[in-house]
């Protein structure tokens, strides 16, 4: 459609769309979001990621390494038939753990907070596995390593000792097997 009043784009004071394309540009944004700003943000990201590791190394240097473990009585072996498990706390009252007498007759103990989101893990004797019911995480009862589901890390292993029919917890290993 043509308009008589409309001036051609090569005429003075024209309002032709092709001439006014510059109005589409936002100069402020143009100055703010460019390759220079992108590179600066990238450097900032890199530095921020580097700095984010510092608290971990500071904690490691401050010696948050665990102290010597005490020998703590867990249960009498006679009270724990095969296929059964008992909850205890080790090494502190804030660390729930599970002593398991497996269906094969082995004694195993692990901290029972799931390494995914800390839900309590329990022994499922019909499948002979440790199960976290929150998100269906499965751990191998023989070594505490994840078998299926979201958990990526193994359950901390509680070292046990049987003395005169009593099971004791004597230590803990985080990375094992």
């Amino acid at each position, binding site marked *: 459609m043509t308009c008589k009043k409309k001036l051609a784009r090569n005429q003075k004071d024209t309002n032709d769309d092709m001439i006014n394309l510059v109005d589409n540009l936002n100069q402020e944004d143009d100055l703010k979001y460019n390759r*220079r700003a992108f*590179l*600066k943000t*990238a*450097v900032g*990201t*890199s*530095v921020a*990621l*580097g*700095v*984010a*590791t*510092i608290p*971990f*190394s500071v*904690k*490691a*240097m401050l010696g*948050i*390494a*665990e102290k010597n473990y005490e020998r703590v009585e867990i249960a009498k072996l006679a009270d724990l038939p095969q296929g059964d498990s008992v909850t205890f706390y080790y090494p502190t009252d804030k660390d729930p753990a599970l002593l398991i007498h497996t269906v094969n007759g082995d004694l195993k103990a692990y901290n029972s907070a799931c*390494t995914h989101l800390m839900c309590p893990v329990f022994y499922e004797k019909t499948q002979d596995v440790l199960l976290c019911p929150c998100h269906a995480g499965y751990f191998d009862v023989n070594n505490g390593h994840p078998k299926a589901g979201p958990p990526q*890390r193994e359950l901390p292993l509680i070292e046990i000792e049987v003395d005169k029919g009593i099971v004791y917890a004597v230590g803990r290993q*985080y*990375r094992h097997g």
Partner: protein
Amino acid sequence: MGKKTCWGIIIATIIINVIMVQWTVEAYYGREYKSILIYSGVSIVSAFIALLVFLQWRKVEYK
């Protein structure tokens, strides 16, 4: 050092740092204290390199 090289190094430091943060957190949860220091050290050095390379890039870019 050219501007493109600077871009490459800075992007590389981001990749390295993302991996190092993940490994540091994993080492922390696993109570592997020696590994924490190694990964954290690598990450900090990498961040420092990114900063130096950025200064070099700025020198060339705004010349």
